[in-house]
């Protein structure tokens, strides 16, 4: 097909959009529709700005993890060890702070170190020994979960003063807030983790969009063979994707630790599946080569919003969360699959 070079690219022209952009816009539109719908039909809670910021507070760690997950998925791999890593990091840091008398900076260093160590081993096994990423990270998950209980079995809250101070730090957002029952204006706030998460999203977005390394990830995930012929170091790129993912999981582990303030072996259970779901809802494809970090962020927020809707609609029973999450995932997958199939048909015809 001949490409028209002279025509102006319009954002709303679906045919001209890349796969990545199309899936991204679907995610964003669905998220806003859902949130606005919740505002109209459920009112109250959703009209308060703090509800939105609470979603951010709760999900900041998941957003960071999902960014790493998207990167690995764009490169054509998968990493299911991230949830276990978050549990291991929160437990290790909790033990370091409370039992070994470590410093705050030391615990942050430990978190990053654990992340990098996992990335090094998993990345090496996947990229240079050519073992399936699923098996490698499965073992990584088993290892992390087991190590967590070896480090310390009983869950406990961290009492270290400087850590608690950091945990309770709240950043007020000027001019945004709501009026409470007494008529006082209450400022909306976010935790430090949210700032970290937003920074990660911005950095990752810039890297993936405008750097050579970022484009290499897409190239390797899209077609390994042609990437190799273009002179891209496929193995190194794969290795780096796992390295960055684990590094981000390290940061996310600490952000999660800051949010919950305790160590427990059951922390972040199922986080890896949530991260994969967020990435998929955000338009990342497991086959590689397609995905967008902004979409991933909205994917995470969409999942959290639907959970909030379920609880505020009075469907409190635990099973509803599972079923609605699954229904949403199913909906997105089917939409993506149908749209992609139609586009393929249109391209052929």
């Amino acid at each position: 097909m001949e490409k028209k070079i002279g025509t102006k690219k319009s954002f709303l022209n679906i045919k001209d959009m890349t796969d990545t952009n199309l899936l991204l816009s679907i995610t964003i539109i669905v998220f806003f529709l859902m949130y606005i719908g919740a505002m109209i039909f459920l009112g109250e809670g959703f009209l308060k700005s703090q509800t939105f910021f609470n979603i951010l507070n709760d999900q900041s760690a998941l957003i960071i993890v999902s960014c790493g997950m998207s990167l690995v998925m764009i490169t054509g791999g998968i990493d299911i060890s991230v949830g276990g890593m978050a549990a291991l990091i929160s437990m290790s840091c909790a033990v370091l702070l409370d039992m070994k008398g470590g410093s705050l900076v030391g615990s942050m260093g430990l978190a990053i170190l654990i992340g990098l160590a996992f990335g090094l081993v998993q990345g090496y096994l996947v990229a240079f020994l050519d073992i399936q990423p699923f098996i490698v990270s499965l073992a990584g998950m088993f290892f992390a979960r087991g190590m967590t209980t070896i480090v310390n079995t009983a869950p406990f809250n961290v009492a270290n003063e400087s850590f608690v101070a950091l945990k309770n730090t709240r950043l007020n957002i000027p001019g945004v807030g709501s009026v409470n029952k007494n008529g006082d204006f209450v400022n909306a706030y976010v935790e430090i983790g949210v700032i970290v998460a937003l920074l990660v999203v911005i950095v990752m977005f810039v890297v993936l969009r405008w750097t050579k390394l970022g484009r290499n990830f897409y190239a390797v995930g899209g077609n390994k063979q042609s990437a190799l012929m273009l002179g891209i170091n496929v193995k190194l790129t794969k290795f780096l994707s796992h390295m960055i993912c684990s590094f981000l999981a390290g940061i996310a582990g600490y952000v999660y630790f800051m949010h919950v303030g305790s160590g427990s072996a059951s922390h972040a259970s199922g986080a890896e599946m949530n991260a994969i779901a967020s990435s998929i809802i955000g338009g990342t494809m497991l086959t590689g080569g397609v995905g967008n970090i902004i979409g991933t962020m909205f994917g995470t927020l969409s999942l959290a919003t639907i959970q909030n809707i379920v609880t505020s609609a009075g469907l409190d029973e635990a099973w509803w969360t599972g079923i609605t999450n699954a229904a949403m995932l199913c909906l997105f997958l089917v939409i993506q699959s149908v749209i992609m199939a139609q586009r393929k048909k249109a391209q052929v015809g």
Partner: protein
Amino acid sequence: MSKTSVNTNESFFKKMIHSQIFIPIAALLLLTLFNLIWDPSFFKINIGPDASGNQVLSGYIITILDNASELVILAIGMTLVTAASGGQDISVGAAIAIAGSVILRVLCGSDSRSTELQAPIIVAFIIACVVAMLFGAFNGVLVAYFKIQPMVATLILFTAGRSIAAWINNNELPIVTDVSLSYYGNFIPGIPIPTPVFIAIICVIIIMLVLKFTTLGLYTQSVGINEKSSRLNGLNPELIKLLTFVILGLCVAVAGLIKVGRFSTINYSVIAKDIEMDAILAVALGGNALGGGKFNMMASVLGAYVIQYLTTTLYKLKVSSDALSAYKAIVVILLVVLSAPIVREKLAKLGKKLKKKEA
């Protein structure tokens, strides 16, 4: 003369090393050797009365054979799914919860504490089979017709499965007091070997006969190797993929019956937890390519037993059940690294170099 015989010996040895079933057998031998050195009493089998007075066999070997049953049955279905679709079903644990919940729901009727069975067990089992196969078909349709990657498609049921299982029984925990259900998970009076062992063996025999006398094995492999050329050869790849998922659904129902039979009750969040990971590991340990294509059913079945062997060995070494996974992970990584083609090639080269030096 002697030289040629050495050569044939060597080629036999080489053939064995390169054959797929070598990995699980080697792992099995290694574990056995370790146990022999560590504590030979591992292999002792006792006979004695159990809680209900039956003369039954007990010992670690029996425990391994018994507890591996669900895994073996799942490994059969998982191997087929892996071969045809090039992906894995991660929802089997959740699906077992659903199947178990259905069995209990049918047996107990509306009263979760009823003392009598409301329906024969065979009816409950058949209904569970149908339900599990329907859920398998749901996964299969997503994978085959909507072209969603298997791991992602089954992520849906993975998230919802345990919730659905709880919903089937209105979040109650039914308890079956009738002993006949426990026959399927424990012992039948008068027979000293646990029933699940028999069920697993029957399943293996059935699948072996099916693979031998039907084209199922050939078709799944050809779809896994090259979908397009399979279609050109007159196969219907979508239907075959769907079929493998339905077969896995059937396996899930059988495993579900054993699981409920063991306890006569169900815990939705714990039952068959992480079994999907073990089932996938069994397939991988059997040396089957997780990317689809050729498979070796016996190797997968052996892989399942190896995993249970490993688990039981670790338990015997007083590893707590929580920490178990860390050790398992190390063993798995070692096995996978050693069986990786690149590592094997390098080892072979190293071996040749050593031989040259000797010469």
